[in-house]
C-alpha cells in the first residue's frame, strides 16, 4: 500500500535549514492499522502531510498503491487525495454554514464524478447520524462533528485513511465511539494511519511507529 524509501524533508526558515524528517523508510501493507507517535515538533505532522499528499518530500520516494507520488504536480496530487485518501482532523474541520450532508458530499465535487446524495445519506447512516443530515456543523456536538468528518473521509471510498489526533478534542465516550468506527473501517480492509498521544487510542493499532527529531523507528508490532 505505502512504500516509503529514504524520505527527508527540509524546510528553510530564516535562512537556516531545518530537517523535519530524516531518511524515513517503512512500508505499510494494505489493511494495516498504524499509529504514529511522537512529541510535538518531532516531525509527525510533516510525515502525515507527506503521506496525505499535501506536501512533497525534499528527497526520497513515496509509492502509494504502486504509484510514485513523491514529486507530482498540484493537480496530480489533488487527484490522489481525492481518490485514495480520506482525512480526519483533530478539530473536525467541517465547513461552517454547511449542513452535515453537504459536508459529506464535499469531496465528491472534486472527485470528477457525479455527486450522489443517496451515497452521502448512506455513509452518514454508517456513522450513525441519519437524524442529523440537515443540521449545521455548529448544531452538532464534537463527537457528532467528528463522525460527520469520518463520513466525509469515506465518501470517495479511499483505501487510506489518515487521522490526525481524531479524539484529541473529544471526551472519552465520544472518542471511544469514533475509535470504534475507525476500527470497523479497518476490519473492512481500509488502511488507517493515525497520529495520537493517547495510549488508549494507540491500543487499537497493529503497528506503532515512533518518531523523534525527524527520525522514524518501528516501536512494536502486534499480532
Amino acid at each position: 500500500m505505502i512504500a516509503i524509501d529514504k524520505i527527508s524533508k527540509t524546510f528553510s526558515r530564516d535562512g537556516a535549514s531545518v530537517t523535519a524528517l530524516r531518511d524515513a523508510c517503512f512500508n505499510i501493507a494494505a489493511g494495516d492499522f498504524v499509529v504514529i507517535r511522537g512529541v510535538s515538533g518531532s516531525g509527525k505532522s510533516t510525515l502525515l502531510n507527506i503521506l496525505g499528499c499535501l506536501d512533497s518530500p525534499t528527497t526520497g520516494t513515496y509509492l502509494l498503491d504502486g504509484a510514485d507520488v513523491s514529486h507530482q504536480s498540484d493537480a496530480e496530487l489533488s487527484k490522489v487525495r481525492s481518490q485514495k485518501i480520506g482525512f480526519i482532523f483533530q478539530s473536525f474541520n467541517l465547513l461552517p454554514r454547511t449542513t452535515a450532508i453537504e459536508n459529506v458530499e464535499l469531496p465528491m465535487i472534486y472527485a470528477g464524478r457525479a455527486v450522489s446524495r443517496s451515497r452521502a445519506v448512506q455513509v452518514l447512516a454508517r456513522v450513525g447520524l441519519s437524524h442529523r443530515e440537515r443540521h449545521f456543523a455548529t448544531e452538532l456536538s464534537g463527537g457528532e462533528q467528528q463522525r460527520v468528518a469520518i463520513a466525509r473521509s469515506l465518501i470517495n471510498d479511499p483505501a487510506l485513511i489518515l487521522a490526525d489526533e481524531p479524539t484529541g478534542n473529544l471526551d472519552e465516550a465520544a472518542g471511544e465511539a469514533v475509535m470504534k468506527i475507525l476500527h470497523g473501517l479497518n476490519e473492512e480492509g481500509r488502511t488507517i494511519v493515525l497520529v495520537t498521544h493517547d495510549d488508549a487510542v494507540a491500543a487499537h493499532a497493529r503497528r506503532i511507529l515512533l518518531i523523534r527529531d525527524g527520525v522514524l523507528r518501528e516501536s512494536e508490532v502486534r499480532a
Partner: protein
Amino acid sequence: MNLLRLFHAVVRTLTRNKVRAILMMAGVTIGIASLTILTSIGESTRRETMKRFKNMLGTFDTVIIRPGSSKNRGMVTLTNVVPSLKFDDATAIATQIPEVRQVAEIQNAFDIDVKYQDRSGTPAIFGVSSNWLELRGDEVAEGEFFSEDDARSMARVAILGAEAQKLLFPDEDSIGKTIRIGDVPFVVRGVMVARGAGPAGGSLDNLIFIPVTTASKRLFNRDFLTMLIAQLKDPTKGQVAIDQIQTLLRGRHHIAQGALDDFNLTNPGAVMAQVNQLGSTLRTLLLVVAILATGIGGIVIMSVTLIGVSERRKEIGVRRAVGASRNAILAQFLLEAVLLSFAGGMAGILIGVAGTQIVAQLQHLPFLLLPMAILAATMLSIVLGLLFGVYPAWKAAMTDPIDALRD
C-alpha cells in the same frame, strides 16, 4: 471537478452569507444603474434634440440664407430685417450655383391678425414658394398645398398649420372656408400634418402658409425676403455651396472688399453635427464617470473577497485536503466574484430601467432602452467580476493547505 456542482456550492455560500453578498453587490449595482440611466437618458435626449431640429428644419441638406450680418440672431420677420435679400437673389442662386438643387423663398411675419367668423389669433404667416413641401419633406394632412400656378397668379389661398387649424376651426372642417389674414380674404386649401415641438420645446404648427408672391404683393407689400433656403445636391458639400453663394451675393449686392456681408449663411447639417458632437462629448464624459463608479464597485468586491480569503483559510485548507486542486479553489473564488458582480449588474439594470422611466417622465423625454447598453452593462459586470475577482481567487488558490489547516 464537477462544474455544475461547484456552481451550486458557490450559490449556496453566497446565499448563506446574504448580508455580505448584498454589500458586495451594492457598488456594482449602483454603478450599473447609473450607467443604464445615463446612457438611456443621454441617447433619448440626443434623439429628441435631433428630432426637434428636424421638426423645425425639415431637412439638413440645405444652406439657409438670411438678410443682415451674422451678428443679427433670433427669429427674423419682415419688420426687423434689413431689406437686402431679393427675389432675384433667389433666382440667381438657383440658376447659377451648380451645387444647389432648388431654392425656397420665404417671407414671414408674426404680428398679423387672422380671423374666421368670431375666432381670431396671430399665427405666424409664412409666404413660401411652391416647392416648399418638396424641399422640406413636410406633408399635408387634408386638402392640398398650393401649386406653382397659384403662386404665379398670386392666388389668395392658405394652408393651415395644425395649431392654426385648431385655433380657427376647433370643431369644423376648414377646407374651402374663407379666413381673413390682416384684412385680406384667403380660401383655406389644406391643412398640414403637425410637426411637433421645436428645439426650444414650443409648437411649430401655429402658422399659416400662403404663396410668397401673394404675400409680397397682396399682403405685406414688401419686395424683400426674410429667408432663403437653398437645397444642396450633395449634402456633404455645404461649405463649398456657402462659399459660392457668398461670392455670388456679395457681387450682386455690390459689397466692397473688406466690408461685411449684408446676409448670413448657415449650413444646418454642420450645425447639427456640432450639436451632436457636443452631445456625444458630454455623453462620453458621463459614461466614463459611470464606468468609474462601476469600477469602484469592482474594487469593493475585490477587497471584501480578499478579506473573505483570509477568513476562510480553514475552508480552503479543508477543500484542498479532500481533493480540491489549486485550480478548483481559483475557480470557486472567481466564480463567487463573477456571480456576485453579475447579480449586482442585473439588479443595477433593473434599477436603471426603473430610474430611466422616472427621469424620462420628469424630463418629458421618450422612454428609450438601448439593447446595446444593457448588453454592455451585462458584459461589464461579468468582466468586472473576472477582473477584480482574479487576484483574491489567486490568493486563495495559493494558500498553503498545511498552514491553513494548522490555524
